[in-house]
């Protein structure tokens, strides 16, 4: 079955420190992975994706993610956290079973709290 796990409900980090939000996946076939961010009362915003190629993917707002095939992980990272990064972060994997059409399966979300 296609699935995504985000093991942490919440991540707390001090401003200026590096942050990591964890994601592991389970897919049959090649994984197509995405990170989204959701601010309060807003829709999800696309941050970055891994389709193929370099394992380190750079995205919006200084975020990056590292694809690790052996560990089936796709952790989101940022070298220096900002208070404004505080939000809900979702990892997602594309489910390719339905004739290849887009269907994203989302993890349960991780709330990131960056403290001044």
């Amino acid at each position: 079955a296609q699935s995504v796990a985000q093991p942490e409900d919440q991540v707390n980090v001090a401003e200026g420190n590096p942050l990591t939000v964890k994601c592991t996946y389970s897919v049959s076939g090649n994984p197509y992975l995405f990170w989204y961010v959701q601010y309060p009362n807003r829709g999800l915003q696309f941050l970055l994706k891994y389709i193929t190629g370099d394992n380190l993917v750079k995205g919006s707002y200084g975020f990056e993610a590292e694809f690790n095939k052996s560990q089936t992980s796709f952790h989101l990272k940022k070298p220096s956290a900002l208070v404004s990064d505080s939000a809900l972060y979702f990892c997602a994997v594309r489910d390719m079973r339905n004739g290849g059409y887009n269907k994203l399966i989302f993890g349960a979300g991780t709330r990131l709290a960056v403290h001044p």
Partner: protein
Amino acid sequence: DTAVSQTPKYLVTQMGNDKSIKCEQNLGHDTMYWYKQDSKKFLKIMFSYNNKELIINETVPNRFSPKSPDKAHLNLHINSLELGDSAVYFCASSHGGRINSPLHFGNGTRLTVT
């Protein structure tokens, strides 16, 4: 320059009523979706349309009926609303056949059934 817009933003109604949520995208995408986000923030796909054709229909009660008059619009009609329908409903769009095409989401419709 709104990309994916949903109306209304908030919807408060009583059990048993019928209501609709509208969605429009101006991104030129050929595929649109409805996702439901529950009170624990869990997101689950409900429906997907590609060029007005239904391609994904998850195990959603028959009371939910999507309609796509054209590829830029996907509306959601809900009959006989129940308390458990209270959630935030998100519309999204993408280039359906492109594996690297991310979904673009609207800002959601918060439905409260009393």
